[in-house]
């Protein structure tokens, strides 16, 4: 409540200006399924992707429901610490419409990449924003975050936090200043996927002024990569997030060719958290990625 009282005051002060409208807040947001007009500030929000939780945490709003795949630890700690408890509404791939409706939300934020087919159903439950969550860059994500903050009437907070964020990123950028190449990849027992500069992690690396080992301009965010292509890409630093316990790296490391990689020679293979680097995106995730990079570089 303490957070809300200065807002209430601000709203009261602004009241004479909005004498034509009976509502304290009216937001119109352009989203991926059209235009959504909200005539009052939503308070019970359900989000169906992790990156939107980051956006709400930054705006200082706690969602009542999250499609967290039934595991609260899927939300990264820096985000979890900023929000209150929530109800799970199922998996991101197939959220439970019943669980969402039971929470009586007044705003649903869904992933336009994943939830396109249930948009109509979601709209029947509550006003629904369709925004992009996966396969977008750092800057595109900031634009999405800004839309969410204006939907929950927290544009001012967002702008303040954004300034702080930009300063943090700039500080880290200055610290990281070097000419090495950096590559983030996801590994499983089935293969390796390089995240190009058009992926989220790749674009954060780029934002920090670090070089990508990919010479060509690549629009695909995730590239499946054989050992041969890794040898050619040959990054100075390889940051890997594992999705499975055993990965193809175990096999590749045994090959005589492994020693020919720059990062193997200089021991610059770093294991990072897949949930921070790949599963989510947002200001808090970006700051964590940047800090992790800085901490490894200082060693």
């Amino acid at each position, binding site marked *: 409540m303490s957070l809300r009282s200065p807002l209430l005051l601000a709203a009261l002060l602004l009241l004479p200006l909005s004498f034509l409208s009976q509502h304290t807040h009216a937001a119109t947001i352009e989203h991926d399924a059209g235009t959504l007009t909200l005539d009052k500030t939503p308070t019970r929000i359900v989000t169906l992707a992790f990156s939107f939780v980051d956006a709400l945490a930054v705006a200082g709003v706690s969602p009542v429901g999250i499609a967290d795949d039934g595991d609260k630890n899927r939300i990264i700690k820096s985000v979890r610490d900023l929000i209150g408890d929530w109800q799970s509404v199922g*998996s991101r791939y197939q959220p439970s419409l019943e669980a969402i409706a039971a929470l009586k939300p007044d705003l649903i934020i869904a992933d336009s990449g994943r939830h396109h087919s249930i948009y109509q159903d979601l709209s029947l439950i509550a006003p629904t924003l369709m925004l992009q969550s996966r396969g977008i860059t750092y800057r595109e994500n900031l634009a999405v975050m800004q839309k969410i903050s204006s939907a929950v009437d927290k544009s001012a907070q967002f702008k303040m936090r954004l300034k702080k964020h930009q300063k943090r990123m700039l500080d880290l950028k200055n610290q990281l200043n070097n000419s090495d190449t950096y590559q983030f990849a996801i590994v499983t027992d*089935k293969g390796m996927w390089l995240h190009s500069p058009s992926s989220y992690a790749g674009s954060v690396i780029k934002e920090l002024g670090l070089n990508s080992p990919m010479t060509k301009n690549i629009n*695909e965010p995730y590239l499946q990569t054989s050992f041969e292509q890794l*040898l050619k*890409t040959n990054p100075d630093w390889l940051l890997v997030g594992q999705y*499975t316990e055993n990965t193809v790296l175990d096999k590749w490391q045994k090959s*005589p060719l492994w020693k020919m990689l720059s990062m193997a020679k200089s021991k610059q293979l770093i294991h990072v958290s897949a949930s921070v680097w790949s*599963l989510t995106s947002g200001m808090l995730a970006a700051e964590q990625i940047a800090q992790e990079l800085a901490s490894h570089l200082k060693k």
Partner: protein
Amino acid sequence: MKILSSAGHSKTLTPALLLSTLMLGFIISLYGQSEFLLQANDLWQILIAPDSQDIKQQVILLLRLPRSLVACLIGFNLGVAGLLMQGLTRNPLASPTLFAINSGAACLMALNSIGFAFFSALPSELATFLGALLGGVLVFSLGGGLRSDSNALRLILAGIAVNGLLSSLTRAALIIADDTAYSILHWLSGSLSEIDWHSWSQLWPLSLIALLLAFSTSRGLNLNALGEQTANSLGINITWLRVRVCLAVLLLTSISVTLAGPIVFVGLIAPHLARALFNNNHLVLLPASGLLGAALVCWADLLSRSIIPPAETPVGIITALIGTPFFIFLVLKGKL
């Protein structure tokens, strides 16, 4: 079929052409479409001036050579398996896919990947292999198995039912395992990008046994082509023939799908091409269909690397892209 295998074909010209297509594909796939800009000259250098520090030579020897060898042998296996299936069921639509071997492998692999129950305790490759065997045995036993009165139609119906069951389980697993879904999906399209010498050492011994078994059935299949009753009256033990053929198909397909994922249509196209090019003697058809399969997978793998370089496109997508129009052609020509 008789019309297609025109008498004009020289008995040596067709096999020679086939072998050279395969050899050419094999050699080009050793150096083609590489980010290292490998050239044929690099192959020559390996022979005349081997250098263990030269990255180009090492890439060819440690990555390209096993990949090409495995591509050829898997193609050979699938070509032979397809011919066996068609020979046994006397149905031109039969292919290893019918035996639910691919969907069985996919199902257990997916369950293993998402850590479902005890499946997660098994190594991924073993789980996949067991899944392939499970799918095959299930279809075989539901389809009449060793009973003397079982017929090909029953086998096909069993195949359709088991395939449906296993694929729906795989889909369920994919929904649960959202994060790893794309790596599973990639495998489901069939890919040779993770092949190394270890894969080759797993592949060849089992393939050799299965191929010997396959070739031992060629006389039986020749007689079976005349109809089961005729074959029976000519002294062929149909049950025993069926057991050997099914075992060979099961082994050939299981080991291939375990290493490379389901590479579809090869087992369907290669036998038809073989029959069009050669006569109907299984002693000739088996190696011919195998070589055609080998050439097909080898060239498809080469193509798969050149679609969106540097990313790998699963080879199974290429074989399906080649296979589908071919299949439609067969239907339109009334060859089925």
